[in-house]
């Protein structure tokens, strides 16, 4: 299968400080890819390069075989959605208004939403289970609900590639698990997810593929079971940790436990 997105020898530096070293990666359609790595390893920077928000100093990013910068922003926005981590919230837009913003790439100068836009927004909200929140101010809902609102916006955007920066950041355990299960459900419908996480467990639960990042370079790239191991995690995070198998009804799940807790 040919790659949906591809980076070729991407180098990126902020004011002379190198953040990404020679990154060459392929992303296939329908994959759930987790990027794992310590703080400051360049994960978020890579996401921004993939989104075209940052221009690499050297190297190329291709989307469906075409250079990313040859696309217009509105064209890209119809294919790729960004679900950011931290969110500035200055104005109390309603949840529906935030989701409707996903329809912006489809409108020209006057940006009036059509009845069809509203239907698509409703469908998106229903899909992630926040239909009942539509008239609530975005500033007054919980962190998990906000994250779901942004995912609904990405759905309304009609994008098939979701780029998410630590989607579970700041959510309680229940909301984390609900959100991850939503992501797995959407991936089964054919959407592509490229996301960063600080939790190897979450990568094991959701990802088809895990990429380990350290100091701006790829340490390992492959099937979660092959990549997320006792040895690789110890090398990546420099802590004693064990990856164990928990047998279930149909197969087994792998979990990470720090050595001191065993």
């Amino acid at each position, binding site marked *: 299968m040919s790659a949906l997105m591809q980076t070729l020898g991407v180098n990126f530096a902020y004011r002379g400080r190198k953040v990404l070293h020679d990154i060459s990666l392929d992303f296939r359609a329908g994959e759930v890819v987790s990027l794992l790595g310590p703080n400051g390893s360049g994960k978020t920077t890579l996401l921004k390069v993939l989104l075209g928000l940052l221009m690499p100093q050297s190297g190329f990013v291709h989307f469906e075989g075409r250079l990313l910068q040859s696309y217009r*922003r*509105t064209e890209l*926005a119809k294919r790729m959605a960004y679900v950011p981590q931290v969110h500035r919230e*200055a*104005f*109390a837009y309603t949840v529906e208004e*935030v989701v409707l913003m996903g329809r*912006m790439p489809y*409108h020209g100068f006057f*940006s009036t939403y059509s009845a069809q836009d509203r239907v698509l927004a409703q469908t998106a909200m229903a899909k992630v289970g926040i239909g009942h929140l539509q008239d609530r101010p975005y500033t007054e809902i919980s962190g998990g609900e906000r994250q779901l609102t942004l995912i609904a916006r990405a759905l309304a955007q009609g994008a098939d590639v979701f780029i998410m920066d630590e989607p579970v950041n700041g959510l309680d355990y229940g909301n984390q698990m609900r959100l991850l299960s939503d992501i797995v459900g959407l991936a089964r419908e054919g959407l592509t997810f490229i996301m960063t996480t600080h939790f190897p467990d979450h990568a094991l639960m959701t990802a088809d593929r895990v990429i380990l990042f350290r100091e701006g370079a790829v340490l390992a790239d492959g099937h979660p079971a092959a990549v997320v191991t006792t040895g690789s995690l110890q090398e990546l995070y420099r802590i004693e940790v064990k990856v164990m198998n928990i047998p279930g009804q149909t197969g087994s799940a792998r979990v990470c436990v720090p050595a001191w807790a065993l």
Partner: protein
Amino acid sequence: MKRLSLPLLAALLVAAVLVSLCLGKYRVPLDDILAFAGWKFFGLSGLDEESRGLLTNVLLDIRLPRILAALLIGAALAVSGTAFQALFINPLVSPGILGVLAGASFGAALGMMLANSWLVVQCSTLAFGFAAVGVAVGIARLFRSHSIIMLVLGGIISGAFFTALLSIAKYAADPTNQLPAIVYWLMGNLAAADRPTILTVSVPMLLGIVLLLCHGGRLNVMSMGEEEASALGINVKQVRMTVIFLATMVSALTVVIGGIIGWVGLIIPHICRMLVGPDNRLLLPAAALLGATYLLVVDNVCRLLFTFEIPTGIVTSLIGIPFFVLVLNNVRRGWR
């Protein structure tokens, strides 16, 4: 309520205009105004020759220009304030954030010192309004940063610079003629607005206001942050520069017509946000209508309350400041 608010605000504006036409030293009953309009627009013959001449003079030559000035200035300041609040993701921002008012003030003072012609004063006001914003944007660019915070800092620096230049101008001005004229101008006053100026300036102002109103959807997305706006298909730099240009143009032109009118650009967006919510597609037109109505009402108070006129800018500040204290609680909730 939200759906009805724009028609209601528009009705309020029309009512305010009719009342303003009636009020003045020479009172014109509403019947006469309607009869005059009937004669003027539809050729009806409800008025005798003498009152036609009188009403043409009072309504068209004296009152209407000043009413238009108030409407244009109020709408321009409220709309550019609303647009800047979305652009800078901060509901405490006012149209002067990038230094346009400081620059225009200096430009007006310089014009008054150098030439005895209104045209020179007006051109200088507009030019230095743009120059101040140019300096602010230039400073932000100097650091190769397109971030909002650098723009704000650039605006602070530029504003301080042109305020200092204004002090120099005041110090150097002839204290018997020029200095009082400068000081009086900077208080903000619509009495000076003459008909040809207003008619000329109304064209770019209306165009600027209408173009800003068309940016509602994009401003909504811009207020979610630069990266998200990009990811939602917005050309962030282009939209930002367009909005800054339009807001600078209309704000500088308000100074050309009536000097510095403070606080309208800050409090009107707040009231409108309470009325129609934060969606800029609704908020911008609401701000235009309410801003226009507000300044018209305030200007009526200024010209009618006493036997002498009070500068409009002073009254907008006197009303604006206590009102702002009242809504401060609301502001804090919106801005985290």
